[in-house]
């Protein structure tokens, strides 16, 4: 059997909505196979993964905690990918955001004022921006491929953080553990409820709303889409590709930085060598599953946050590895990309054994 694509004359609006759902369904089906192959009852496995975490109040809050960085980063990455800028180093920008913001609670820990927290957040955003500015500069100035540079900087950022918490920023009273001092109350992002949900969630919701309006209604949003789809037409419209590279990288870097400082200040309360279970990479999946649309990113962020929670739950209940989560996430992105084909193409199957059409009537 041979597979052939037939181009649709226009994007299928129905498929644009169906494709992510189809991808989720396929992931669930393959997930069931995965559980079966691990010797786990598939239904039990899927329940533990995707339903159980939604049944308790505390875990709903936990869901928000995990979704917050994913949504913040995912929104920024959506702008990048819509404008055809391949920033895949959000993990590094997240890390540097956390590092920059933590200058206050760790170095200037004696400064406690109502301004400390805002200053931390601003520094977090600036840190992410600064780290994203490097690939943006190299791309606009020298034409260097941003995919590789942004990714390489992830490793550099992680090693930098590692050095800080094992070296100059190590807690002097921390028994030599590679951790920073604990943050004082003035530098901790306030909680919103009894659980661990914090102000970062509010930031995420505001960002989603602002970005949704920007992308759908503003000239900037139009510019982003035009330059991403047809750079030549963008130039013809009078838009600058270079400025868009800067815009996309600074915006996504800033949002990743905000996510980083919010995570450290709201969830962890100190700096440790590893501050993220790969949020910066998972957010890539969030962006694509959300169809590069802020509202979609919000929903996709919740789903992928669920996969983290489910992974933890399944580890406890079923004894599966927490790595299963990442398999799920990877599969999901694969299926999303495959299903997106249906938006632009119809798929036809042809039997390979059929004679070529030229001789059919002979």
């Amino acid at each position, binding site marked *: 059997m041979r*597979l*052939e*694509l037939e*181009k649709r004359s226009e994007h299928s609006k129905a498929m644009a909505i169906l494709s992510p759902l189809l991808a989720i369904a396929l992931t669930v089906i393959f997930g069931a196979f995965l559980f079966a192959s691990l010797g786990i009852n598939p239904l039990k496995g899927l329940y533990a993964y995707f339903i159980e975490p939604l049944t308790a109040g505390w875990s709903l809050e936990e869901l928000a905690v995990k979704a917050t960085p994913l949504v913040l980063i995912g929104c920024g990455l959506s702008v990048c*990918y819509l404008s055809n800028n*391949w920033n*895949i180093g959000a993990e590094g920008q997240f890390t540097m955001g956390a590092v920059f913001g933590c200058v206050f609670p760790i170095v200037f820990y004696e400064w406690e004022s109502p301004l400390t927290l805002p200053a931390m957040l601003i520094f977090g955003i600036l840190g992410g921006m600064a780290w994203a500015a*490097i690939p943006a500069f*190299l791309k606009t100035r*020298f*034409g*260097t*491929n941003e*995919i*590789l*540079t942004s*990714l*390489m*900087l992830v*490793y*550099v950022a992680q*090693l*930098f953080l*590692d*050095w800080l918490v*094992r*070296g100059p920023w190590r807690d002097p009273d921390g028994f030599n553990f590679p951790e920073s001092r604990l943050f004082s109350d003035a530098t901790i992002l306030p909680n919103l409820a009894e659980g661990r949900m914090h102000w970062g969630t509010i930031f995420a919701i505001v960002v989603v709303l602002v970005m949704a309006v920007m992308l759908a209604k503003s000239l900037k949003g139009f510019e982003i889409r035009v330059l991403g789809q047809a750079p030549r037409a963008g130039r013809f419209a009078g838009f600058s590709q270079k400025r868009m590279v800067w815009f996309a990288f600074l915006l996504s870097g800033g949002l990743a930085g905000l996510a980083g400082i919010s995570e450290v200040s709201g969830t962890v309360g100190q700096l440790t060598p590893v501050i993220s279970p790969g949020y910066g*990479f998972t957010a*890539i*999946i969030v962006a*694509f599953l959300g169809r590069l649309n802020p509202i979609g990113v919000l929903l996709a962020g919740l789903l992928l946050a669920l996969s983290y929670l489910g992974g933890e739950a399944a580890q406890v209940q079923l004894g599966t*590895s927490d*790595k*299963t*989560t*990442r*398999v*799920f*996430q*990877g*599969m999901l*992105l*694969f299926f999303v*990309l*495959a299903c*997106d*084909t249906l938006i632009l*193409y119809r*798929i036809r199957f042809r039997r390979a054994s059929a004679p070529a059409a030229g001789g059919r009537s002979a």
Partner: protein
Amino acid sequence: MSEAEAILLTIITAATPLLLAAIGELVVERSGVLNLGVEGMMIVGAVAGFAGAHATGSTTAGVLAALVAGVVMAALFGFLTLQLVTNQVATGLALTLLGLGLSGMIGEAFIGEPGQDLPQLAIPGLSDLPLIGPLLFGQDALVYLSVALVFFVSWLLFKSRYGLIIRAVGNNHTSAHALGYSVIRVRFLCVLFGGACAGLAGGYLSLAYTPQWIEGMTAGRGWIALALVVFASWRPQRIALGAYLFGAVTILQFHAQAYGIAIPSQFLSALPYIATVVVLVIISRNRDLTRANTPACLAQPFVPDR
């Protein structure tokens, strides 16, 4: 063994996985496909190689398992990008994320398990020569293979008709299709070749470089291999040069530490990544050179009309 000898030996060991992965990706990109999933194929190759050797007790079986694992991952990528015409950049990322997840899951059982070391293929007489003996004739099979692949790929691309077709497909898929070449089939085979090479590169890591399974043990080498292809401006000999250069940078950090140079180890570990960025910048500064050498159809989608 002298100090210099030891350093040179470790450079070869550090360069081989980069060389294997990059030479495969070179062929893939020459055919017009950008597979950013090298890191993913490599790490799955690493875990499969370890598992294969662990299960059978044979490193040969391990190497084969690594190769097959790389090919399977590449097939997945090829099906999506070539048959379903998905975005190559995004699909490559997906392959890496999936590969990292899968390898972590499969490898959980092997953490801390003792590994097996790929045997050195000593050539009697030659291996005993001073200095060059162990360097040139005391290596394991994958080191020899990596060097042989450089020559093979040069021959394939520039001397054989297959190579002419590969370059043609990468330069202009519409023309190649109009002349009757199956663009998708040519590209699929190249992608599989790239997968095999990346799988072997991973296998080398878990069977020779550090003969055990460590989660995430590729540590960005797949990405560095991708950068090497750009650095080499798509030429096989320059890939070899680049790989050994990077091998040297990697090794430098260990020896610098051994000499007690007072630089934090993290900064030294960051060297290969920073070097990658620097090298990419140097190469891309010469825009005419990169533009003239880049396969014109790189990462462009192709849907044949019938």
